[in-house]
């Protein structure tokens, strides 16, 4: 069974979206929200963003950089990069399993 970012409870999915958003470089909060909305088609509220971001920082998956005009960029740590890669591999395998059971080939 796939358990994305265990321990994060209802913030597991937003946390994964944030980690993926930071995978191509540091971003501040607003850029993460815009990137997530563009990638998923669903908005992420600021309260959810910072609740997940705080948990990710607490666990050492992301780290804050010095602020630029009150905007503070965050970047992925090596631990966060390993974790997100592992989560995505598990999700990919789970998606393939589901599609095979439905008799549909993965795209």
């Amino acid at each position, binding site marked *: 069974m796939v358990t994305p970012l265990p*321990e994060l409870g209802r913030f597991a999915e937003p946390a994964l979206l944030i980690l993926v958003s930071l995978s191509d*470089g540091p971003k501040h909060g607003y850029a993460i929200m815009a990137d997530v909305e563009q990638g998923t088609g669903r908005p992420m509220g600021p*309260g959810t963003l910072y*609740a997940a971001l*705080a948990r990710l920082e607490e*666990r050492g998956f992301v780290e804050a950089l010095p602020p630029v*005009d*009150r905007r*503070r960029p965050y970047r992925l740590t090596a631990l966060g990069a*390993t974790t997100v890669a592992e989560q995505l591999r598990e999700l990919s395998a789970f998606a393939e399993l589901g599609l095979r059971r439905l008799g549909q080939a993965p795209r």
Partner: protein
Amino acid sequence: MIALLLRLYPARWRARYGDEFGALLAERPLGPFDVADLLLGALDAHLHLRGLGSSSEHRKGLPMSLRLGGFAAFTGGALILAGWIWSGLDPAESDPGVLVFLVGAVALLVGLAGLSAFQARTHPRLVWAAFLLPAIGGAAMTFGGLAMVAVPDAPIVGDVSGWYFFIFGLLATIAGSVLFAIATFRTGALPRSGALALGVTSAISLVSFVGALGLGGEAQPILMLGFLAFTVGWIVLGLQAIRLDRPALVAGPA
């Protein structure tokens, strides 16, 4: 409006995130969805994140097990190898080398415990099960080694001398390292290349030691290969763990 919403969050949370959070809220008009999301976020911060950011105990705790575990695994592997070489260079005066070896064994136990604690956050049963054999082996090896230095060749439990504890502990540590490497590979919490290196080198080491059991003087090169492989595996995993605690290499801020 923004200031009022920010006041809903705990003071310590505001001290850490308030400025950037206020800047984020000011960047776009707030809709009803955002306000509801903020209210839930503030409630969550009061319930779960009261000390977040300003109190970094948890943050220190997790990477500390990684940092300590990685450093101890690296040091333990290096000292065991150095001690083995040292005691082999002058078998007549082997005590200093054995002591270096034993310090390395203790460091390896610390490394094993640290890396296990780090990985146990996500796979506790698997990791602690894999921890048992090398931990028992490491403890027996250290006990046996100390007994060999303190009372050479004398039995310490029944008719069993420290040498037998040492050999049993060494073989259990090496076999347990294979299991630990498999568990580490499975969790994915540490780099899998490091887990693979430890698994392969420990397996080579185990085959070398078992193969050398029936041999006499010609066993020395095979034992050396076994020790070299075993210690290099732990050194590699330790280095990988230490490197994991660094930021990922990514581009500049958006």
